[in-house]
């Protein structure tokens, strides 16, 4: 087999390009991965984009979330906790129906944090809004302040919690953006389930990184925050509402 000069350069160039590109993607990941003893910083802001055009009549995200975090009810919908729920929107004029998952929107200026009397409701440096149940007194001010009805109160004793998701009676809880998974470099359970069993409608990533999937997705088309009039700058964005 003989190669002429042109073929040799062509094959060689492709090989070099492959070698240069493939590991560089990996290297960026490694450079950004946080070690367990390193504190979170505001250099990142975790966000979620949900494409309503792709979201269909499926419950994969809700099931996955509640399975991952050990959230279960007692058959009492009025008081059972829920971290994520499906909401149906219907245009009364045309009858057009859409469905979307709704959870904590991880606001940049969260009203739940403003009203908390003990500091239990707080925002982490990387934008994840959480409840520190060690200091939550169960007053439920945050539940009233949240415009998205994202938080639940635990009314009943809980057993068999997941080791990574402590939950207890008398405290308020909500979506944690699967903080235990995010801290170890994984994506939230709902996003994983949506891409595997659902309709690939959810994208998770760093909103401050221009090269992340979510930033590119957001830059490539329109998206909205729910209740933009409140100026909360939510970390969860929707497309197609």
């Amino acid at each position, binding site marked *: 087999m003989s190669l002429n000069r042109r073929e040799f350069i062509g094959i060689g160039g492709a090989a070099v390009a492959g070698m240069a590109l493939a590991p560089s993607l990996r290297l960026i990941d490694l450079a950004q991965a*946080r070690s*367990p*003893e390193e504190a979170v910083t505001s250099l990142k802001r975790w966000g979620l984009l949900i494409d309503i055009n792709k979201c269909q009549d499926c419950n994969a995200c809700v099931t996955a979330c509640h399975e991952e975090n050990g959230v279960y009810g007692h058959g009492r919908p009025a008081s059972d906790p829920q971290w994520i729920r499906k909401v149906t929107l219907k245009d009364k004029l045309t009858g057009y129906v859409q469905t979307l998952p709704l959870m904590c929107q991880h606001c940049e200026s969260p009203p739940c944090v403003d009203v908390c009397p003990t500091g239990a409701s707080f925002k*982490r*440096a990387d934008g994840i809004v959480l409840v520190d149940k060690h200091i939550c007194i169960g007053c439920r001010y945050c539940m009233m302040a949240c415009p998205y009805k994202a938080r639940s109160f635990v009314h009943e004793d809980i057993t068999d919690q997941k*080791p990574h998701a402590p939950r207890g009676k008398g405290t308020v809880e909500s979506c944690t953006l699967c903080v235990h998974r995010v801290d170890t470099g994984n994506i939230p359970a709902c996003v994983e389930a949506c891409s595997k069993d659902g309709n690939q409608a959810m994208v998770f990533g760093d909103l401050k990184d221009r090269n992340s999937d979510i930033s590119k997705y957001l830059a490539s088309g329109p998206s909205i925050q729910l209740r933009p009039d409140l100026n909360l700058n939510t970390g969860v964005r929707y497309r197609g509402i």
Partner: protein
Amino acid sequence: MGKIKQIVVGGVALVAAGLLAVTLAQAANVSGVKSKGIGPTVKIHRGEQCVEPTGDMRRNHMKYILHQRDKTMHQGIRTTKHSFKNCVDCHADPITNSVQGQDGFCSSCHEYASVKIDCFSCHTDKRDKNAVEVAPFKGTAAKGAQP
């Protein structure tokens, strides 16, 4: 005649001593049951040494957990050395998989000292089935228990 008597008595004493030694050895194999009757039952099933010296852990374990709690919750620092999850994963009973209940590592001592803990109103008292990096079992106490 006297000599034969002496030999028989000596032999009996030797057998008794042997039996005693075997019983003691078996008792020791039920890994580290510290006391009977008065005092808590402290069973150590895994490893040779806790994350800090034993005396330090007895006095200060709550401070270590509290410190780590705030770092994990607010700063996302998830090192295992002083983590609550690590305590449970290592100290859980190999049969019940729990640190609570009768003779549970946490509950036996806390009941004896009459100090109420509310960790387990939110946290699970069972070890993580997928836990890795915990110390290996010691002795024969945990035969048949899951790794």
